[in-house]
């Protein structure tokens, strides 16, 4: 690691131990709730304060968000349209299985 970068990371680690500040490791515990919108106002302020001083977490958060969005949109049209037909043998298998089921009362 670049010596300057090593010093910088040590300073950042120390900064994270100050009141109302987080280390990146502590920041991680808030990420899900941040996206869920369930952080308290105080937690949200601390979370955002960390983002102001940490480009690694800022980059991480953007990549995390992008990954979630990719997953969420992967199966949505028009990228992955649901085929508009059902295998005929499966349709017939379900109907046949239904016919062989005992009739239920009302």
């Amino acid at each position, binding site marked *: 690691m670049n010596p300057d970068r090593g010093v910088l*990371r040590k300073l950042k680690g120390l900064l994270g131990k100050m009141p109302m500040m987080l280390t990146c490791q502590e920041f991680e515990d808030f990420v899900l709730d941040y996206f869920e919108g369930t952080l308290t106002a105080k937690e949200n302020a601390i979370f955002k304060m960390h983002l102001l001083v940490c480009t690694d977490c800022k980059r991480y958060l953007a990549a995390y968000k992008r990954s979630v969005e990719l997953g969420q949109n*992967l199966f949505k049209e028009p990228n992955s349209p649901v085929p508009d037909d059902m295998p005929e043998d499966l*349709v017939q298998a*379900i109907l046949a*299985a*239904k016919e062989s089921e005992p009739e239920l009362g*009302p």
Partner: protein
Amino acid sequence: MDDTENNPRDSTALEQAIREHGPAMLAVARRLLRNEEDARECVQDAYLRAFTKSDQFDGRSTFRTWLHRIVVNSALGLLRKRKRSAVQTLDGLLPEFDANGCRIEPMWQIDEPLEKVLENRLVRDTVHQSIDKLPDIYRIVLLLRDIEGYSTEEVAQLLDTNVAVVKTRLHRARAALKRLLEPLWTGGEI
């Protein structure tokens, strides 16, 4: 569409329900089970359950939503019956920190709009394969929450666990997915 028309109390209504909703239900089963034969078994089982329990459909949700839940429950039942994969850890896929608690994060290039990125077949295939690589306990939570659209509470109910467990697994699954997708954005090997 009038959902009461879809209530599969008779063969005609059942066939209509199969043809109308079957493709989407099969897609859900395929995503959860990753196996064509199991997915077909799941869908068949779900329709038969829907038929035999049609009196329980109270119209509070749409028929499609009700059926979707039955398919998910049926798929989860099949997954429980399956011999669970030995690999259930996310070793090497979770965020890394140095001794100072500082994040170790590669440089990402996220310039293109999401819609544009999703037009790329390689990206879509990689996302799909990456989700499939996750161990089941994480993959299922990610699918139910992020793709099938259930709330955290609903996922907890479906998996017979609590919200805290779902949230932990969801966050780890997302973080692991991000890690698996890194080669797409950092120019590494996929």
